[in-house]
């Protein structure tokens, strides 16, 4: 546990140090360049790009969460059960339709920039949240639900006071998964001029600069891993007491 924390801290330190002062790391990346190409991305600020990508991902995740949790609640109510197959199909399409193709379809409709990326990430992130919401709501022990109704909770009170709190760890796990998948996926947004680390990777591909590709990839990867880890630690703190038996 102690060692793992140390590793996390080291990774975070490394990421922050690189983003704040990338040129300190120039000697590390220099061997990867040829013909005197710059070892560190020089057409934009790495920190700004990383934050822009995170912001895009978080906005998309927020929208995915609202829609997926809402749908998950709807289809687990008796009145909404008939919408389960339809909702599941739609959400599955969102996951199986490649984000690149979503971008291609979205650009003619909403133009270049952040918007098509947001749409692609939104659709791509629905599935884990939706399925985990359903799994969480269904995992509530029947005796607990029976007791909640028997105590005199209305359907809404039961949802708010019992079902959602009990489903929350699984729902948050879905959000976490969705976020992490999308931190990586968001790099493709740069193909349609959304600000992000994809820009660095694409610049590396165009100029055959392996150092750029590696920088974009490593920063994205580190952000994803640290986000996943940080959110899990947060969940553990919040739900230490909750255990289903």
């Amino acid at each position, binding site marked *: 546990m102690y060692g793992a924390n140390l590793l996390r801290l080291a990774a975070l330190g490394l990421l922050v140090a690189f983003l704040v002062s990338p040129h300190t790391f120039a000697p590390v990346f220099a061997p990867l360049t040829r013909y005197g190409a710059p070892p560190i991305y020089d057409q934009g600020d790495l920190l700004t790009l990383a934050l822009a990508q995170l912001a895009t991902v978080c906005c998309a995740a927020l929208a995915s969460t609202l829609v997926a949790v809402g749908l998950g609640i709807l289809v687990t109510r008796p009145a909404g059960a008939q919408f389960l197959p339809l909702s599941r199909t739609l959400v599955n399409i969102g996951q199986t339709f490649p984000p690149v193709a979503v971008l291609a379809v979205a650009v003619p409709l909403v133009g270049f920039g952040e918007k098509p990326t947001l749409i692609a990430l939104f659709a791509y992130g629905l599935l884990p949240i939706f399925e985990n919401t359903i799994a969480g709501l269904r995992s509530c*022990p029947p*005796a*607990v*639900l*029976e*007791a*909640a*109704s*028997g*105590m*005199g*909770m*209305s359907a809404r*009170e039961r949802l708010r006071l*019992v079902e959602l*709190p*009990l489903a929350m760890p699984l729902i948050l796990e879905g959000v976490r998964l969705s976020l992490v998948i999308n931190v990586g996926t968001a790099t493709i947004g740069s193909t349609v001029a959304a600000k992000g680390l994809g820009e660095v990777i694409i610049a590396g591909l165009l100029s055959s600069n392996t150092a750029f590709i590696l920088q974009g990839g490593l920063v994205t990867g580190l952000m994803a891993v640290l986000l996943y880890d940080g959110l899990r630690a947060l969940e553990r703190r919040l739900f230490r*007491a*909750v*255990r*289903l*038996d």
Partner: protein
Amino acid sequence: MIQIEGLTKQYGATTVVDRVSFNVERNSIAVIVGTSGSGKSTLLRMINRLVEPTAGRVLLDGADTRSEPAHLLRRRIGYAIQGHGLFPHRTVVENVATVPRLLGWPEARIRSRVHELMEVFQLDPGLYANAFPHQLSGGQQQRVGVARALAAEPAVLLMDEPFGALDPIIRAKAQEDLLGIQRRFGTTMVLVTHDMDEAFHLGERVAVMSQGRLLQYDRPAVLLTHPADPFVARMTGITDRAMKLLALTTAGEAALPGGSDGPRVASSASLREVLSELLWSGAASALVLGEDGAPRGQLTVAAILARGRP
């Protein structure tokens, strides 16, 4: 008082509960007993409208239970179930405070009520107030479940196999506690069980159900001596019905004047226990002692045997 009138529940073509009528007197315990699939749980759940009846009605102190929204009705009726159904994400105090919170009681009143109930149910608030359900033993969980059901001072308490998940020793203790609670709060109770001994022990009146129909609703002794139906006789048990009859009477009730140098028994002991004690010790009679330890009279084997006949 609970009046159940012609209560019927049908799911499609199947009738689960078929025109059941009976009354439960205020401050008494009625037990519904039957095999699985007899409709006893459905009948209980129709009283607090967790199941809506197809026909018939339930009156609580004269008022039709359909005269208010179901969830508001349920806040006035305690409900405890097998496996307790405690909220795993809430502490003992929060669990017990559920219904008072729903009713919007002032915080101070909730606190004092929860405290009172924890004392009554032998849960030291210092130790268990902030414990979560999974940190408690099975018997403690069950007590919290009943405490939660009683928190808003309901006049009626419904229980569906509340002791089903407990081992025999804790179960016997829980039954005694329940009788104590009933005497203390005067709650009208309806309890569902499949265990005839539990029914006879707890119920002032016992309703025997089979295939959705109420076969007989009577005092335990009457069910034993005058079963209305061969099924009732089978449920109550034919081979040991004399012993069961003895189990319904306490030594205090049956004691005759006089002294004895035989074994000493408590007046709260059942005649079945006294007889067993006499057989074991080989004595001809036993001395009955009151709660204060003073002799109350004596019981001979012959006197006990006479009580075991219809």
